[in-house]
């Protein structure tokens, strides 16, 4: 029905205005604000005027350094050892607290160390929590992206069959997606619980009680892995549906042609299915990568970044600093760094998966 209203240009803009306005107010403006604020010392509430500080915030976050510590020796030149026989090293803070010989290490703290002969190599960071968050986030992405994508593809291939009751399976696999991530995280906290959690009980039952209960979220060695497993489970259904839609764009007659030529299941996948999914694969990889970089809710609900910062992530830190510590500029810096990382990875992915012709 072409009425005056639907054809009028100004009416169209008027209808679009509320949407545009909200997007501008809550997405576009904050996006540019983040860039601006990251160059200042702005706090959420502060009596002091805001000052422009240039790239100082970035230097404070990204600054890393390294020192080699030589063992402490007695007058005879022998290496001093502690009660357990471990080598005694000078304290790191001797180098990082106003030491005029090491001005570039000033204010840094130890991130991790390893021994090289009798010496110890120590990697220092200006902001240890941030670099841990960066490392955890990258670990999360590197594990989640390929695992979630391939698991989702596997599920999509399974449910892309004409079987009785296939919709039951589709529903089951998709269900975690429609449940709020906060609810899912709370439930999984019970599953991972150390004293009487479902996971420990199952593992105990399967091994006839031999399995020692583990506090999955309470140990630095298992906490991130536990969150990774749960995150893959939670969102795999969403990507399964995208794969499924990709699978269904492949003409069935191509499969028939392959069947006539005697193609095995694997050959059919290799020559028909996978090439037909190329665009879907690019989309899914980029979407998963971006979602994985943005991991926040699971951390917030399940571990709050702990134990011992083993589950700190970039977005969690950005929120923590911006609102928890009221350090808006600090949060903005992390947001901008995250944006640049995701942007460059997406560009690299697009370039790697481009149509070669």
């Amino acid at each position, binding site marked *: 029905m072409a009425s005056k209203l639907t054809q009028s240009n100004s009416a169209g803009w008027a209808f679009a205005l509320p949407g545009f306005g909200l997007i501008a107010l809550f997405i576009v403006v904050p996006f540019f604000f983040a860039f601006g604020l990251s160059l200042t010392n702005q706090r959420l509430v502060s009596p002091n005027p805001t000052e422009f500080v240039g790239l100082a915030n970035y230097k404070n976050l990204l600054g890393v350094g390294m020192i080699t510590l030589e063992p402490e020796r007695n007058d005879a030149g022998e290496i001093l050892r502690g009660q357990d026989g471990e080598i005694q090293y000078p304290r790191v803070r001797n180098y990082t607290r106003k030491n005029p010989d090491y001005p570039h290490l000033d204010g840094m703290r130890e991130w991790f160390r390893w021994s090289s002969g009798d010496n110890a190599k120590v990697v220092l960071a200006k902001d240890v929590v941030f670099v841990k968050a960066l490392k955890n986030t990258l670990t999360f992405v590197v594990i989640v992206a390929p695992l979630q994508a391939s698991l989702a593809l596997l599920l999509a291939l399974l449910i892309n069959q004409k079987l009785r009751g296939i919709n039951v399976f589709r529903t089951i696999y998709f269900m975690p997606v429609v449940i709020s991530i906060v609810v899912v995280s709370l439930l999984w906290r019970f599953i991972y619980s150390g004293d009487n959690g479902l996971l420990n009980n199952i593992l105990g039952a399967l091994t006839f009680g031999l399995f020692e209960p583990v506090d999955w979220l309470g140990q630095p060695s298992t906490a991130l892995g536990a969150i990774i497993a749960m995150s893959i489970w939670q969102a795999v259904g969403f990507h399964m549906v995208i794969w499924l839609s990709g699978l269904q764009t492949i003409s069935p007659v191509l499969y028939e042609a392959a069947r006539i030529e005697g193609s095995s299941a694997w050959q059919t996948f290799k020559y*028909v299915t996978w090439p037909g999914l190329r665009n879907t694969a690019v989309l899914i990889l980029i979407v998963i990568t971006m979602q994985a970089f943005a991991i926040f809710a699971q951390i917030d609900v399940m571990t709050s970044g702990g134990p011992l910062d083993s589950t700190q992530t970039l977005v969690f830190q950005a929120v923590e600093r911006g609102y928890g510590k009221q350090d808006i500029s600090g949060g903005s810096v992390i947001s901008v760094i995250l944006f640049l990382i995701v942007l460059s990875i997406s560009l690299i992915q697009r370039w790697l998966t481009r149509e070669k012709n």
Partner: protein
Amino acid sequence: MANLSLQNLQKSYGSAHVIKGVDIEIADGEFTVFVGPSGCGKSTLLRMIAGLEDISGGDLYIGDRQVNEVQPKERGIAMVFQSYAIFPHMTVRENIGFGLTIEGVKKDEWNERVNEAARILQMEHLLDRRPSQLSGGQRQRVAIGRAIVRKPAVFLFDEPLSNLDAALRMDMRMEIGKLHKQLDATMIYVTHDQVEAMTLADKIVVLKDGKVMQIGAPMELYHKPANLFVARFIGSPAMNLLDVTVAESTATGHIVQNGSLDPVEIATDTQAKPGDKLILGIRPQYLDPSHDPSAGKLHGTVSITERLGTETILDLTLTDGSKLVAALPEDAIFKPEETVSLTFDPARAHLFQPEDA
């Protein structure tokens, strides 16, 4: 090369019977065309031969082997689909060689056989193109190339020309005919176009509602249609069908007449007694109109004259109000509204039972 034998072949989806017991014998090297209106089951029958559809009942033999349960690739067949079914991400060369790739044929032989197929189809210059760079006719040629490269015993064509425009269709039709002579292979070709059937076939199978209406050489079907359906389906323009009444039965046939037809004796083995209603069939080409209103046995007036140069088509209204079409082999001038009479050779006319429809 192989002969085929379809014995009481049946197909049903649940309670819907699509193929209702079909018996066809196809000799080695024969070009057989399945023809019929859409929904007659011709494509289903072809797909049953290919192994893409299960056989619900009856037996299918290729050569001496019963192949009801045999996988498509084991049947020694190749199929060309209406929508080409060539792989969009592969070059023409890879598409043609697909079956050989699946089989794991060695590189030298692979090249040799692909090049030979390309030479037969005169498309050597297209080998490195992608399907998106090809015209419809070229794509279909790629599909045919993929079929011939494996040297199958039986070729199956499922309406291969339906997606092409009229001019191209004629060229490709001739090429397929040539290909058959060149390869001397058994070919089964499905079409709804009776012209394709007439021009290509050694043997035509006319199907309707999952049943065989008639099997025979093209000219046999043209001159001796077994029933009204075949009479209507084969020939262009379609055969004229007039309701007539039996006036008298003779030793060799019946004398029939109606309001616009003077009594005429038609030799037939169709059973009828005086007073019975029959249907008289005469092809437009066998009617000879005359300006003299009393020269022939059929009477009517000219409605429209279509002069095509090689042929003149007359649309006539008979005195009893029924319509008739006459096709004259040369340019002839009949004015609209002119009263004419038509003569015909009773030996060229057919009598059908009305229920044959």
